[in-house]
């Protein structure tokens, strides 16, 4: 079963797609990357994820798996030899899942809140909210890492993947708004962790360059400011 061909439907700028790529890389699983074009949805995507019509979709043999964190857990469970991406201690595992849910429910909306802010006042408030959430995550890092280098301990794990995939977009946001969100002064542990995460062999080839992402962001944010009429 683990030996069946693996394909990943995705797009290079998507942090959610990156989660699946990092997980596959950590497990040294070869896969074919099928790039979706922004603004269009391929037949394969519409067939593979009819419910949400979103990327990423993992195609493993004839099996389809959707939703990025669910894909990561699937990868962890199928290619189960070698170190797991979730902690082996059940309480630590629940803690990792808790913070991953926080990343999706609180962190991500706050980050795009900055891009969606329509005026300076709203932007300032959105930036303030992101900073508050990063302070919470700085604290979470202390608790989860227990003095080690990653949220997951000695190695990149589930929570590192869940959060780290946003680092490219975070840097773009900092650049476009002239702010420091993760910094050595405000969030020292996260600053160090971010460097280590991005340098990890499973991550560095799939994390987009900030400049390339910034160019892409300009196109995308123009759509937020002038949404197409419904």
């Amino acid at each position, binding site marked *: 079963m683990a030996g069946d061909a693996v394909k990943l439907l995705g797009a290079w700028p998507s942090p959610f797609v990156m989660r699946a790529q990092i997980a596959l890389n950590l497990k040294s699983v070869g896969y074919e990357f099928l790039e979706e074009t922004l603004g269009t949805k391929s037949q394969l995507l519409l067939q593979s994820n009819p419910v949400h019509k979103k990327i990423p979709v993992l195609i493993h043999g004839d099996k389809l*798996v959707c939703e990025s964190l*669910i*894909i990561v*857990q699937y990868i962890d469970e199928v290619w189960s030899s070698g170190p797991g991406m979730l902690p082996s201690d*059940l*309480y630590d*595992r*629940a*803690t990792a899942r808790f913070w991953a*849910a926080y990343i999706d429910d609180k962190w991500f909306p706050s980050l795009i809140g900055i891009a969606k802010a329509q005026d300076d006042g709203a932007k300032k408030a959105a930036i303030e909210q992101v900073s508050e959430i990063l302070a919470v995550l700085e604290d979470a890092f202390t608790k989860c890492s227990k003095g080690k280098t990653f949220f997951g301990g000695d190695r990149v794990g589930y929570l590192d993947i869940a959060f780290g995939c946003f680092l490219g977009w975070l840097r773009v946001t900092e650049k476009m708004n002239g702010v420091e969100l993760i910094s050595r002064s405000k969030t020292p542990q996260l600053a160090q962790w971010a460097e280590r995460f991005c340098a990890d062999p499973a991550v560095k080839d799939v994390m987009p360059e900030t400049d390339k992402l910034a160019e892409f962001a300009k196109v995308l944010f123009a759509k937020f400011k002038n949404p197409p009429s419904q």
Partner: protein
Amino acid sequence: MAEEEVRLFRTWSSPFALRAIWALELKGVPYENIFENLSSKSQLLLQYNPVHGKVPVLVHNGRAVCESLVVVEYIDETWTQNPLLPEDPLERATARFWAKFGDDKVMQSIWDLVQKGREEQEAGLAQAIESLQPLEEILKGKKFFGGEKIGFLDIALGWLSNLVPVFHEITGLKLIEEERFPLLSAWMKDFSGFPTIRETLPPHDKLVTKFRAQLEALRAKSRSQQ
């Protein structure tokens, strides 16, 4: 086996806390209920769930687990009798997918619907019914979402079985009609009628009173903001 201390912070009505309760009850795990009043939260709750201050919180030998579906998975992994998630990785991924769909799409569209005034309810109803359609599909050939036995997805969607009748009574809108949703209708009866589950369900009339009051308060608030 070391002395186990299992406490569950909950309210009498929280559908999220019920998920944890169902998991514990189905596995026969002894636990202590700690009832919270959400308008006046206890120090302990805020200590155990500093990030959200919400129920449920499972405290197992002094360590707190939060977020209902995280709690259910923790319970499933810690007490391995009567497993809730299947063993096969694809089946597990599928159960998790539909649980998330239930929370993100179904619950959201139903709650949006019941909050609307009469005039807007038509459109809201169509959307809520559309979100329920896939659930009818995946029940084909099964008694429960878990197959022959109640499983993770039944627990995640179980709120439908006791809250949809409540919303029906309050709004007069039939969300799950037997003709359109024969399998889901049968599942609601089988799930809420299952002895272990039935004993945990909050009283229907009390829920109707509570949600009526809550919805009226929300409407008053939005009127005063216009």
